[in-house]
């Protein structure tokens, strides 16, 4: 079993980047591997917006990630600074009454991702426990 941490950097619709990331996650889990977390950085934060509004025959990545989390209980973390810069806000942020951040996603600092990799570095001798970081 391999442990993975997934780093998503592109907006949905503009590119297939996030779709590839999600399919990778699903395939990895099916194959018996573990996804420790999915982290959204740069334009990847747009995956978390409840304002995504697509035609019925198109893929709504916010819904797809939310379903993925429900089925597999994988943390979906997003960089709170990258999100704020792109107009993705949680309810309690900056006293904004409205939120467009989907409930499945957790706004965190970047350190959340790197802490996982750092823990990895400390356990390096135990190869089975190491986490592989995959950037999409």
């Amino acid at each position: 079993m391999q442990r993975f941490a997934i780093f998503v950097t592109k907006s949905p619709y503009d590119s297939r980047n996030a779709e590839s990331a999600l399919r990778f996650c699903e395939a990895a889990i099916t194959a018996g591997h573990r996804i420790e977390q999915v982290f959204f950085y740069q334009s990847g934060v747009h995956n978390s917006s409840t304002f995504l509004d697509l035609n019925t025959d198109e893929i709504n990545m916010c819904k797809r990630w939310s379903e993925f989390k429900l089925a597999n209980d994988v943390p979906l973390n997003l960089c709170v600074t990258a999100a704020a810069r792109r107009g993705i806000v949680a309810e309690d942020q900056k006293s904004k009454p409205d939120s467009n951040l989907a409930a499945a996603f957790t706004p965190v600092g970047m350190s959340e991702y790197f802490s996982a990799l750092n823990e990895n570095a400390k356990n390096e001798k135990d190869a089975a426990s190491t986490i592989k970081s995959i950037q999409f």
Partner: protein
Amino acid sequence: MSAYLLIISTHAPYHSSFAMDAYEAALGATNVGLEVRFLFQGNGVFQLLSAQTPAGIQHKNMAKKLKALPLFDIEDIYVCSKSVALRFEAISGQNHAQNYTNEFFEKISISDELEAQIVNEQELNILMANASHILRF
């Protein structure tokens, strides 16, 4: 060989947010004690030019920001020599610039305040092969 995260910065400083995103990711990683090494490749080498005057477009000077990297324990900084060579030739109009590295470094800020290692292709391969993780921006 100690475990390290290699951050590769490949974009020019002001056209997009990539340069800042790479910089902020590096600070986030070093902040939790992860060893970070930083590589400038492709158009990323333009971040190192000392003659940046971004005040006119209301941006902060990237080269000045980069000088702070050692203060955050990021001391292993690398510059891809091939990327510098290609761009120096393009800017100067000189083909086969003999001393492109020296001349380029007269123009960039790292010579005094930010120590960087110029790496060739083979050294780059080793740097990447030995990294525990790589993030490219």
